[in-house]
């Protein structure tokens, strides 16, 4: 069989290994020809998708193709909103198509679309139908189940949500125990609470807030996942359940504003919780700290070449590009270098829209992870002499990018740091060891 070359001509199908009724018909014995002519254009798929709440704009595509070259998934595979439109026009409702799960809802296509076709609404709408039909990739289904049972995608106990604080070196008050109003309710979020690298950022944040004299507290075990990525992955019901739990917790306490670590939480609280009954001031931590940057007492010089990865849900989808850069520019010794894909054209890390919980599934359909591609861009920008830093402002990213640093062979050549870690480091009195 190995000396039987497989025919790769389009429309000719030939299986290398095929046994039917005990008879081996491998190779040319099973050669088949798929139908070449298109004999109908069924309209049902388009009618069905555009009939979904959120799916309406798919029909508006006029096939210009501007979305495809800016789609991060297209860079590592064959995908793009224009191509989805073609598929749907040809009768594919995407429910059983792997493409349904490749979109990270990063929003770069929507940025350039002259017809305002919006996959940030279309994809969740179709995915919701797939969820209802039980057609969800296993790893995503597991994350949904964890969120449902424990309120976090890792499936950790809610009681352990505040374990990180023991090693923060400063007190981290729980609002339920304070018994008084606070200025800042700090929503810590899932990966910051449970992931080892996220916890580093949480501890740094606690130290920085304390040093600045901010009157803050956290929800602790009462905090639940914001649910935004579950929503974008199609689990609207789960999103609403989590939102209800968080809104109930918010309602128990008095605070002036909510400060969040996670851009996805920022997106949820700012843009989606209002219709579920919670309205209030919400700031991403970079926005909050940018207001106080003049008050920060720097004690160390970092001497680092730093590039910054715009999180899709802080930058492009919520318009905040300057606060993180203002903070980085203020850190003594930090030299900021921009990657070619920055600000509105930032390249997605692959974690959004459920991508965080679809790594194995997505890997089967792309040539490399989006995070790996982004790390290559960072390396090309800040070099590999060990002083280069890929800075981030989203708790999804340290784990994604650190894995990518290793898998692209850049271990020890570039490091990944949340901006809060760099700030904390430069506020420490001891001369910094290299980040």
């Amino acid at each position, binding site marked *: 069989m190995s000396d039987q070359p497989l025919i790769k001509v389009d429309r000719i199908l030939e299986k290398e290994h095929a046994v039917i009724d005990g008879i081996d018909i491998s190779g040319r014995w099973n050669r088949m020809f798929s139908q070449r002519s298109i004999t109908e254009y069924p309209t049902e798929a388009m009618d069905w998708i555009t009939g979904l709440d959120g799916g309406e704009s798919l029909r508006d595509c006029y*096939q*210009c193709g501007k979305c495809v070259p800016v789609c991060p998934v297209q860079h590592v595979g*064959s995908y793009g909103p*224009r*191509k989805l439109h073609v598929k749907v026009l040809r009768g594919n409702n995407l429910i059983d198509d792997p493409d349904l799960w490749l979109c990270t809802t990063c929003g770069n296509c929507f940025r350039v679309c002259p017809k305002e076709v919006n996959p940030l609404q279309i994809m969740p709408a179709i995915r919701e139908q797939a969820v209802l039909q039980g057609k969800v990739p296993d790893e995503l289904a597991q994350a949904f189940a964890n969120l449902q049972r424990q309120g976090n995608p890792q499936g950790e106990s809610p009681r352990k949500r505040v374990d990180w604080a023991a090693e923060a070196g400063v007190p981290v008050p729980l609002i339920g125990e304070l018994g008084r109003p606070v200025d800042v309710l700090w929503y810590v979020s899932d990966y910051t609470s449970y992931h080892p690298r996220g916890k580093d950022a949480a501890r740094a944040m606690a130290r920085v807030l304390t040093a600045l004299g901010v009157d803050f507290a956290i929800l602790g075990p009462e905090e639940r996942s914001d649910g935004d990525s579950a929503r974008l992955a199609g689990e609207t019901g789960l999103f609403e359940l989590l939102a209800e739990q968080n809104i109930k917790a918010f309602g128990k306490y008095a605070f002036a504003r909510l400060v969040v670590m996670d851009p996805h939480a920022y997106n949820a609280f700012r843009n989606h919780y209002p219709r579920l009954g919670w309205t209030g001031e919400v700031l991403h931590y970079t926005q909050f700290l940018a207001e106080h940057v003049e008050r920060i007492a720097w004690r160390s010089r970092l001497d680092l070449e730093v590039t910054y990865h715009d999180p899709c849900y802080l930058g492009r989808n919520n318009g905040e590009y300057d606060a993180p850069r203002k903070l980085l520019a203020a850190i003594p010794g930090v030299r900021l270098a921009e990657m070619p894909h920055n600000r509105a054209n930032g390249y997605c890390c692959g974690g959004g829209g459920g991508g965080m919980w679809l790594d194995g599934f997505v890997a089967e359909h792309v040539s490399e992870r989006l995070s790996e591609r982004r790390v290559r861009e960072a390396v090309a920008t800040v070099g590999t002499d060990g002083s280069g830093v890929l800075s981030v402002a989203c708790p999804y990213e340290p784990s994604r990018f650190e894995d990518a640093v290793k898998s692209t062979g850049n271990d020890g050549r570039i490091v990944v740091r949340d901006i809060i870690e760099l700030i904390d480091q430069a506020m420490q009195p001891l001369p910094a060891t290299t980040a």
Partner: protein
Amino acid sequence: MPETVLVVGGGPAGLEAARTVAQLGGRAVLVERRDVLGGTPDESHYAALTPNMGSAQEALDILRAGVRDPAIEVHLGARLSAFAGSAGDFTASVTGADGATTEVKAGAVVVATGFQHFDPGRETQMYGYYEHADVITLPDAEKMLSEHRFVRPSTGEPPRNVAFIQCVGSRDRRLGNDYCSKVCCGVASKEAIEIRRLLPDAKVYIFYIDMRMYGYWENEIYWPAQEQYNVNYIRGIVTEIVAKEGRLLMKGEDTTMGRPLEVLMDVIVLSVGMEPSRGTREVAALLGVEQNRFGFIATPGEPMDPVGTSVPGIFVAGAAAGPKDLEDTMGMAGSAAAKALAAARQAGVRTAGAVS
């Protein structure tokens, strides 16, 4: 005294309207913002006209000669500063560059205030017009072609690869310009032919969404560009231009092949579309004629009346009413002039009747 028609704008539409009014026995007062006649084709250095490739300046000279007529009073460097009245009895103040104001009585008005080219700084892709010297617009290319040369602005050397990107500022809901600008496909193809004539070794590409070459433009421009001048038409669009090794790397998708494209170019021409000119917006507001949602002057009588505005006695010609090619413009100008003069005369008859 014959009836007077006020013509606002001294481009092709205004020149033709004034000439027609005089030819029909009326009197025209032509008001032009600039110190020369000719409008955008002159101001933007048009070289050869689409589709017949005739000289733009020669064509404009014929129109300019048409208004050298005792029945036509031309005000250059002037603008409308006030306007009142109704059909048959309009009064306009025309203010010159020196600040002196003349009062003009007119029975009807033809607005011919034209368009302006889309500012590529407003596009939502990343073409970097203000960043890369070798990213230019159709009128920038036209200016070079009017001097019988086509070079890379950054080096002064002739380019090897030239790309046109269509629909820049047109057909785009996000920019508020939903409409097709109608002439850019033809103008880009015409310029591509001129470049190929000047630089037989250069490769010229046109990246498009849909080629819109209606009527004779199909056989007079599109087919010769492909068949005789080997212009390469690629159905695909560009979203980003980055500098690379002293050249321009354009990134996009070849939508016919469904594959990404990343091609090095030496000059990239943005086919910028039409927007209402500042003069069109200002004059529309001053005259009180309705504008459509894009800011062009509305023609509620379409399709049978393409020149009547929302105000009786005020007519519109050319690109002040939306994207127009020169054929449409000249046709509208004649029609607007005839209807304006007729409206002025009818109103005059009514007034005379009332007096007697």
